[in-house]
């Protein structure tokens, strides 16, 4: 800044004449008067007296800015690459007295780490007239570490290139950034630890549940076997001599023990589903449905059954579990239509927005719509056991499988007009 104004002041005597002749002349002085080509050349520019005062005021103003700036400012000679001026903040920042800074190269005061870096910076500066380092670690003369942002650009002054470097201290900003970074890292670590803890808790809960099922599987069955076994022994001991009432009672004990056994089986199957991992693959559902039906057919003794299994779109599913869905739905369809002749069972699908909806339909007994909400709950039944046997687990299992695939299940029915069970397997189904 000082150099700029000094240059102007130095030219004053030589250009004073121009003041008389007029301070502005058209380019080349050909008098064409074309104002678009008017150039003001500061070397021929002759300020008036008032303007000189303004320049001095300006010099003072910018000098004060230079002196008081809380950024370091260096002026460097591009030819010698030596510092020709430095503001007081540079001294404050690096601890070198003003005189020590003058005549030094940038790398000597640690601004660039070595001569090679110095050379590279100057080459870049020459090519682009601009260099910026976002985050430059410096060491002050007394060995203190300073983080700075370094901007350097070249401008022309009095026909010569001058390099100005602005150095902003960002130590505090960096410290805050580092502090935040550490804080975030700490929070992340805490979060991770919490996840580990919750996972462990979940695993423990699962293990407990597994132990519970194991216990049910083993311990609840033993007394049932004893009930059944000893009743059988009684039957044998009486050897047909028991009264009608006693025979009936013994029969009921055995039937109930068997029912309880089935309930335990159902409960185990249902609880086992939660623990089993899904093994998804691309499945052709119609093949599963047909295979299931072939397995079930021998049980429909002599009754005429019309079955229509449509070509169903492929889907991503666990084949074993999806087969279980069809097994339970088709078993129900056969069971509740066994007094129809013929029983008509249809397996089909439809596109519903972006979902594939599969359905299994029968023309059987149906159910009362007002109880529909109970249909898929475990151990809930909508028919008496003497009408249709069952444990109330089948549809609960179907619902759990469907939901584990990310799908939904619902049903529509009218008493005596059959039932239709719809299900989806999530939006990813092809």
């Amino acid at each position, binding site marked *: 800044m000082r150099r700029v104004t000094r240059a102007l002041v130095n030219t004053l005597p030589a250009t004073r004449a121009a003041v008389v002749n007029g301070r502005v002349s058209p380019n080349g002085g050909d008098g064409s008067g074309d104002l678009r080509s008017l150039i003001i050349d500061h070397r021929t520019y002759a300020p008036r007296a008032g303007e000189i005062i303004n320049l001095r005021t300006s010099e003072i103003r910018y000098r004060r800015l230079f002196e008081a700036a809380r950024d370091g400012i260096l002026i460097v000679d591009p030819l010698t690459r030596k510092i020709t001026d430095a503001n007081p903040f540079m001294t404050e920042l690096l601890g070198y007295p003003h005189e020590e800074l003058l005549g030094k190269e940038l790398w000597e005061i640690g601004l660039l780490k070595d001569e090679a870096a110095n050379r590279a910076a100057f080459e870049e500066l020459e090519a682009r007239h601009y260099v910026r380092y976002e985050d430059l670690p410096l060491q002050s003369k007394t060995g203190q570490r300073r983080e700075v942002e370094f901007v350097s650009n070249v401008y022309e002054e009095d026909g010569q290139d001058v390099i100005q470097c602005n150095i902003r201290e960002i130590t505090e900003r960096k410290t805050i950034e580092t502090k935040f970074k550490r804080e975030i890292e700490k929070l992340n670590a805490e979060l991770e630890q919490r996840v580990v803890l919750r996972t462990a808790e979940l695993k423990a809960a699962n293990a407990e549940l597994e132990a519970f099922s*194991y216990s049910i599987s083993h311990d609840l*069955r033993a007394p049932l*076997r004893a009930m059944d076994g000893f*009743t059988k022994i009684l039957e044998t001991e009486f050897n047909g001599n028991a009264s009608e009432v006693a025979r009936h009672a013994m029969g009921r004990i055995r039937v109930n023990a068997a029912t309880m056994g089935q309930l335990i089986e159902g409960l185990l199957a249902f609880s086992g589903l939660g623990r089993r991992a899904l093994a998804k693959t691309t499945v052709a559902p119609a093949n599963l449905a047909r295979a299931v039906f072939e397995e079930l057919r021998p049980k429909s003794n002599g009754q005429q059954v019309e079955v229509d299994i449509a070509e169903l779109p492929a889907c991503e599913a666990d084949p074993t579990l999806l087969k279980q869905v069809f097994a339970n739905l088709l078993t129900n369809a056969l069971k509740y239509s066994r007094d129809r002749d013929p029983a008509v069972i249809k397996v089909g699908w439809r596109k519903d927005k972006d979902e594939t909806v599969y359905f299994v339909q029968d023309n059987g007994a149906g159910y009362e719509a007002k109880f529909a909400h109970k249909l898929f709950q475990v151990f809930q039944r909508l028919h008496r056991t003497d009408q249709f046997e069952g444990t109330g687990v089948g549809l609960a299992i179907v619902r759990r499988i469907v939901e584990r695939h990310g799908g939904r299940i619902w049903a529509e029915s009218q008493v005596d007009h059959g039932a239709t069970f719809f299900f989806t397997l999530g939006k990813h189904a092809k």
Partner: protein
Amino acid sequence: MPNNAPDILLVEDSEDDSAFFVIALKVSAPLAQLRIARDGVEALSLIFGLGAPATAKPSMVPKLIVLDLKMPKISGLEVLRLLKTNVHTRAIPVVALTSSQEKRDLVECYQLGVNSYLVKPMNFDRYGEVVRNLSSYWLQFNQSPNP
């Protein structure tokens, strides 16, 4: 070889299940000699006496061991592991007869070298059928290296 060896050593902690086994065996193999151990500890001391189960020579070699899995103190799986680790008892046929339908029990038993795995049926008639089949198969039809 000790001569007090029974045809079948039943290792079973449930008195009821033992009683059913006895009844069913009487019908299907009335001459078979049966010895009952009430848990894993009793089974090991019957077979090995005071010797260390992993290495000792057995003091009793039954033709067949029928083993319940879930028992107090030493479980059936542990008894099975010791029997199949010990070179002197490895060849004794062991049949697991258990309430457990858990797949992990089934898999572990076979990994330990069980010779057969049967689930106790809930229904007594079916239970009798299982005992009849296992006694006729292992005592009459099957050839085993033990005397």
